[in-house]
């Protein structure tokens, strides 16, 4: 049984005086125990909303969530707010993008770690403090005992993110969701944090959903990758296959727009043309069609369905062929 099984998940935001907005549109994927799965896509494609829906953290009013999110077989979407609260931090942990704003500025780091331990593992404060120092040590924070009494503003950006990772993993959840955990950090620190995450999930057997707009991040970390576009999964493949042979023109474009160490010298980076503002609604065809170098007439008439081929999933009428040079 999969650890997490997301199927046909949709999130529609309804604001008074505005037309409903579908941020996530029938997303399905699953995560096996200990597996690392990537959710990749440009800004606004629904990565964060998907993760918040899994965590039960979307605003109760104004966001309509449908579909199914099964965790170890239990449907999370039908849990009460209180039941979901019991699971967050214990079964599922989450790390967010901006470590500074994600930490409470007026509370010492120690308490921000121990409060999870007290809540879910019923530890008394004293014992929790010892455990917290241990946790900070595990995520590579030097001199952890002293750090317990410090406040977020006294830590460096990288250390803050390490502290947040320690909090998220404090109760040894089976699933960790990391939503662009390195975007707000310096490049050198980014690599360290990614290495730390990789090491931690490997050692603890935690499954990880890695959310990023950067395929480079995915390259070193994920077993399987879901590429999202306009709230839908457009391609899913195992990491090696995706990198070796991207099939969806959008995936292809993403790969062509990141610097690669193994790229032949002189190859230019090609950004994807246009922006999400050019999208057409999914029910009129393929949302990516207006930006797609491979677009055909059918692409703006018939909505592409998810097809399975060679163990990967693909939603495209005219996928990239092997050795095809895609014009920018």
């Amino acid at each position, binding site marked *: 049984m999969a650890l997490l099984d997301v199927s046909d998940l949709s999130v529609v935001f309804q604001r008074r005086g505005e037309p409903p907005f579908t941020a996530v549109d029938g997303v399905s994927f699953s995560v096996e125990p200990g597996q690392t799965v990537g959710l990749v896509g440009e800004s606004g494609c629904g990565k964060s909303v998907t993760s918040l829906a899994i*965590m039960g*953290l979307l605003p109760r009013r104004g966001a309509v969530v449908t579909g199914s999110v099964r965790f170890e077989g239990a449907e999370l979407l039908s849990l009460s707010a209180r039941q979901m*609260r*019991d*699971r*967050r*931090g*214990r079964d599922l*942990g*989450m790390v*967010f993008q*901006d470590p500074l*704003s*994600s*930490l*409470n*500025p*007026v*509370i*010492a780091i120690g*308490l921000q770690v121990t*409060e*999870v331990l007290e*809540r*879910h593992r019923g530890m008394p404060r004293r014992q929790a403090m010892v455990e917290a120092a241990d946790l900070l040590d595990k995520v590579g924070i030097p001199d952890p005992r002293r750090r317990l009494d410090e*406040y977020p*503003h*006294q830590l460096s950006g990288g250390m803050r993110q390490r502290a*947040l990772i320690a*909090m*998220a993993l404090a109760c040894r959840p089976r699933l960790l969701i990391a939503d662009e955990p390195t975007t707000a950090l310096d490049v050198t620190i980014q690599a360290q944090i990614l290495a730390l995450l990789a090491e931690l999930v490997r050692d603890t057997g935690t499954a990880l959903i890695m959310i990023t707009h950067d395929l480079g991040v995915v390259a070193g970390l994920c077993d399987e990758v879901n590429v999202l576009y306009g709230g839908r999964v457009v391609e899913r493949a195992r990491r090696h296959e995706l990198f070796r042979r991207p099939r969806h023109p959008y995936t292809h474009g993403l790969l062509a727009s990141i610097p690669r160490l193994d790229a032949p010298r002189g190859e230019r980076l090609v950004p994807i043309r246009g922006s999400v503002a050019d999208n057409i609604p999914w029910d009129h065809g393929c949302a990516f069609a207006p930006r797609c170098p491979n677009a055909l007439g059918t692409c703006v008439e018939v909505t592409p369905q998810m097809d399975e081929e060679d163990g990967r999933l693909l939603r495209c009428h005219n996928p990239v062929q092997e050795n095809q040079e895609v014009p920018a």
Partner: protein
Amino acid sequence: MLRYTLRRLLQLVGVVLVLSMLIFGWLRALPGGPVSALLGERGTEEARRELTAQLGLDQPIFVQYGKFLGRALSGDFGASTGVQPGDSAIEIFLQRFPATVELSVVAIVLAVLFGIPLGYLAARRRGGWLDNLGVVGSLVGVAVPVFFLAFLLKYLFAVQLGWLPASGRQTGGLDATRVTGFFVLDGLLTREWDAAADALAHLVLPAMALATIPFAVIFRITRAAVLDVLDEDYVRTAESKGLTTSVIRRRHVLRNAMLPVVTTIGLQTGALLAGAVLTEKVFAFPGLGEALALGFERRDYPVLQLMIIMAAMVYVLVNLVVDLSYAVIDPRVRTR
């Protein structure tokens, strides 16, 4: 922290010195004066001159100020000429200070006790009936003049319904033992429960009138601050940890939302004296405000000088307390 406090107290000396000059000059520049106030328009030229000399008002103003400052440094602020003629200004101040403090404390406690929880609830149920009522109500609360509200309360609850006393600090003829000058406290200390209850009953209406504006302001600031904090990433982090609502509320939301509220409470406390002048007048409450109003009517220089200097000192001290409590709540201030 200690050095900071000392520096602020030194600043206080400067503030008081400058303010004493300003108030000294300003009072003497006002039309009329203690002489006309005491003798009326009918006083003879002879009597006027004599009184002017007696009060020292015939001397050049900086000589007057120099003498005032010299005496003030040794604790002598002169004798009252109009409020309670003959009594020393200090005596009058000490007599009335507990009354106004008692009134202000009850008012600010009321404002905080209602303003913070209601502001919090309004923010949590944004757009609900409590929120809408609170927002409109607090707008009215700020807009309605204090003396009008004081009259209204007095008329309704004291005159018409007779539930509460209409004026004063204590029912005439009640024999209560004085210890501190704070009547409620005295009643409690001496276990004269009826005296304590009587003093408290006298406080209710004026304190309510005085509390309206601070309440309205604290309500609005709390509501706005909580709304801001609820949107913060760290509240989402707290939620992602599955913490109970009560921990999230107390530890993560309220604590951060209190930062602007503490400043507001300080400013409102400092501004209470202005409201106290009007409230005390309506309820004939023998506090500083009443003395201040009377002092202006009768151009009682010594009393006015002392009161205004004291008011400024209290204001500065309250703000110091605010800044210090800020440091207690916010580690970013403390560890800089």
